């Protein structure tokens, strides 16, 4: 392979953080006019690689070549100047400013006395927007645009230079199908101009639709590149996880008890509508669907964080109205939230205090918190969940993701709930801890807890659930038992495709 044939080439890039080798000799090349998918599980090193490319991290070893020349990239600005531009997943726009000002942020055209050359700014911007065929103009305030249009602004930003390589990071995460079509057209257009595209996504169907080649990272290592036309999902998955995708269902069924939680016709504005399901003691019910399907919102409603607009929640057969987490907890509902750092933990607090937080009122000796009672709870769940920490005084922020998650789970188990809801229990957690947490969830069910697991990962839902509720756009599409579920039917259900099998 000669240098001329690649717009961007990485050779043996190594990046280490204290205790972690985040990138371990990654090599990769991008040809002009190709769409190159970059895949890998969470934590495989994709985002680290992008930060190295963007000049946010300095690689410890290795070489980056742009258009055949070895370069050192020390800032996003420099990357952009060399024609390497990023379309970020979290939009990095200033929403009080106009489209034009956002696109030319940091490089507004100047007139005398530091004045902005508005005429040139708007003309240049409108020229770029025209090539993107969008419905808004340069003067629109970015905050007034839809998410999809904001993404278009991000893309327009890439076009202020003559881009050689454009990197899309999960661009379709919040787009509707119609908006995706527009995005793919823009990508095809860039492609035809000879720009190389790196496309990061988890969505297989998109990858197979628009990419030419697929490169896979696993645990910071480069695992190989495949030609999209010559491969299939299974081969890619195998590269990603190092073994065949474990789509094994949960086989162990234990004695089920009474219905612990029943939800009838529950709605909350436009977030979700007419949701009904039941959970028995000893049962794990998995909620599967895409991000934004309304699963988390259902959990939050049951936990008293949102007021339902319609419908009933029944606990042990009794209708209840829950207006706050305090009431939910008093009725035996626990929620391990989706956003561990934002909602699950007080990062600056120590392990013990985090774990006993919901019941600190009950752990008293006289007017004071009883140290002994707290430590014994902590010790009990540290052993039970195998939480690895030097001691209870350790600040939670210093623990690994898996151990942090176990602290949150321990926090709620120690409340001895009737119903345990876990939202994305293994997000951002390494493979080893993942299976531990899966086993833990099965154990809990075996002990008679009613468990709801919300997840966006199919293997996870298949693995832990006795029944699976598939959701699409705020509605329950179908409920499967673990015996009848197939991957195809599940994917169809969460994509909103009606099939004759719908109950």
């Amino acid at each position, binding site marked *: 392979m000669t240098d001329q044939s690649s717009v961007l080439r990485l050779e043996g890039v190594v990046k280490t953080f204290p205790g972690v080798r985040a990138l371990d000799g990654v090599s990769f090349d991008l040809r002009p006019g190709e769409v190159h998918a970059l895949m890998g599980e969470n934590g495989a090193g994709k985002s680290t690689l992008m930060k190295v490319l963007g000049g946010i991290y300095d690689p410890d070893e290795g070489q980056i070549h742009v258009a055949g020349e070895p370069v050192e990239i020390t800032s996003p600005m420099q990357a952009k100047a060399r024609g390497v531009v990023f379309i970020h997943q979290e939009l990095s726009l200033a929403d009080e400013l106009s489209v034009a000002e956002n696109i030319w*942020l940091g490089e507004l055209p100047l007139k005398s006395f530091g*004045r902005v050359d508005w005429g040139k700014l708007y003309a240049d911007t409108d020229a770029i927007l025209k090539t993107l065929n969008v419905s808004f103009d340069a003067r629109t305030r970015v905050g007034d645009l839809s998410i999809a249009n904001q993404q278009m602004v991000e893309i327009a930003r890439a076009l202020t230079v003559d881009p050689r390589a454009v990197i899309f990071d999960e661009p379709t995460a919040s787009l509707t199908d119609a908006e995706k079509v527009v995005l793919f057209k823009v990508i095809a257009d860039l492609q035809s101009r000879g720009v190389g595209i790196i496309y990061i996504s988890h969505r297989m169907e998109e990858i197979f639709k628009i990419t030419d080649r697929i490169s896979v990272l696993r645990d910071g290592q480069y695992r190989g590149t495949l030609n999209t036309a010559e491969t299939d999902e299974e081969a890619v998955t195998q590269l990603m996880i190092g073994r065949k995708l474990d789509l094994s269902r949960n086989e162990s069924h234990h004695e089920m008890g009474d219905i612990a939680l029943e939800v009838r016709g529950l709605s909350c504005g436009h977030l979700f509508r007419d949701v009904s399901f039941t959970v028995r003691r000893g049962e794990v019910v998995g909620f599967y669907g895409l991000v934004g399907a309304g699963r988390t919102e259902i959990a*939050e409603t049951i936990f008293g964080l949102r007021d339902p607009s319609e419908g009933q929640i029944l606990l042990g057969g009794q209708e209840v109205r829950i207006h706050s987490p305090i009431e939910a907890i008093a009725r035996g509902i626990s929620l391990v939230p989706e956003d561990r750092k934002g909602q699950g933990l007080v990062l600056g607090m120590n392990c013990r205090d985090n774990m006993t937080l919901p019941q600190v009122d009950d752990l008293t000796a006289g007017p004071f918190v009883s140290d002994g009672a707290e430590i014994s709870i902590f010790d009990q769940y540290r052993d039970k969940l195998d939480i690895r920490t030097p001691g209870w005084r350790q600040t939670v922020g210093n623990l690994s993701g898996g151990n942090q998650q176990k602290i949150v789970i321990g926090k709620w188990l120690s409340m001895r709930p009737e119903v345990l809801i876990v939202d994305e229990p293994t997000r951002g957690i390494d493979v080893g801890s993942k299976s531990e947490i899966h086993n833990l969830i099965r154990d809990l069910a075996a002990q008679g807890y009613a468990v709801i697991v919300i997840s966006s990962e199919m293997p996870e839902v298949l693995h832990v659930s006795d029944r699976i509720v598939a959701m699409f756009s705020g509605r329950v599409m179908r409920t499967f038992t673990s015996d009848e579920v197939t991957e195809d039917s599940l994917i169809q259900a969460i994509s909103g495709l009606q099939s004759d099998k719908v109950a």
Partner: protein
Amino acid sequence: MTPEKRKDLLKQGAIWGFIVLELAFFSIAGQFLSVTDTVFLSVDNMLLLLQQSAPIGIIALGMTIVMINGNIDLSVGATFALAAIVMLDSMTWPFMQALGDWAIPLSWCFALLTGVVLGAINGLIVWKTGVDAFIVTLGSMLGFRGLVFAYNGEQPTSHLNWTLIDFAEAQFLGLNTASWFLLGAALLLWLLMTRTVHGRNAYAIGNNRDAAVNAGIKVGPHFLWNFMLIGFLAALSGIVFSSGTGSVNPNDGMLYELWAITAVVLGGTKLAGGYGSIVSTLGGVIAIQLLRKGLGYVGAGTETVNLVIGLILIAVLFLDRQLNRKGKEELKT
């Protein structure tokens, strides 16, 4: 007109609507309650009002920029006093006295330089240490005030210069010198914030600092410039105030920071940064002064003025929050 535009217009116009309301209220209430025979809504009265708004107003303009940046400056009151002292005191220096009336512009330069230097100290600390501007300027509020006392102990600093007082009392096109300074500063800063790259970057930084950094905007020096600017304006305010009186107390300017922030917030600038306008701040300044004068006009004392301004500030905050609510299905956190 899109609903967003309408909402924006509502936000921008709110303070002026409030001013009109105040004018109407005091004009009508004045018919029944007035303690004097003068008319409230007279040209003279309004011009006087503008003049009286100047000292806090000029500071509030600078505060707007610092707050759009996402920072705050609590040290302006002390800077105000120190600059005023430097100006008055410098005119008594032997070589300055030898210059005759030429000492006046030179003394102004000294005062403005003092303000800029103090602002630069704040800015440098914020930039280099990364300590929050609230804490940095809280500290320098104490420290700068210490410098004020260091200058002349607890004695007032006075220097009578009739040329200076004549200048301060002068009128041009019906407007008093202080009013001209306020309006002039407002115009220049409005141009700065709406027309120049520096101004637009100020919004970008306050709005989304990471994005600004990634786009290569030099955030640290930008902060430094703005702190120097507000130091300059605090000093300018000190000059305008003390040129008229010819005397300054070491406690002068205390609580100015809080009044300036009140005016800026009334004008709709977001505390978190990224949103706000010079013109609206001018509105906020005028609204407060109008309230002071108006309440005085209908016979209410300082006590009522303080009470009303405080409650209005809270009410504005409450209304703003109600307008931005997302509805019933919102997450209750």
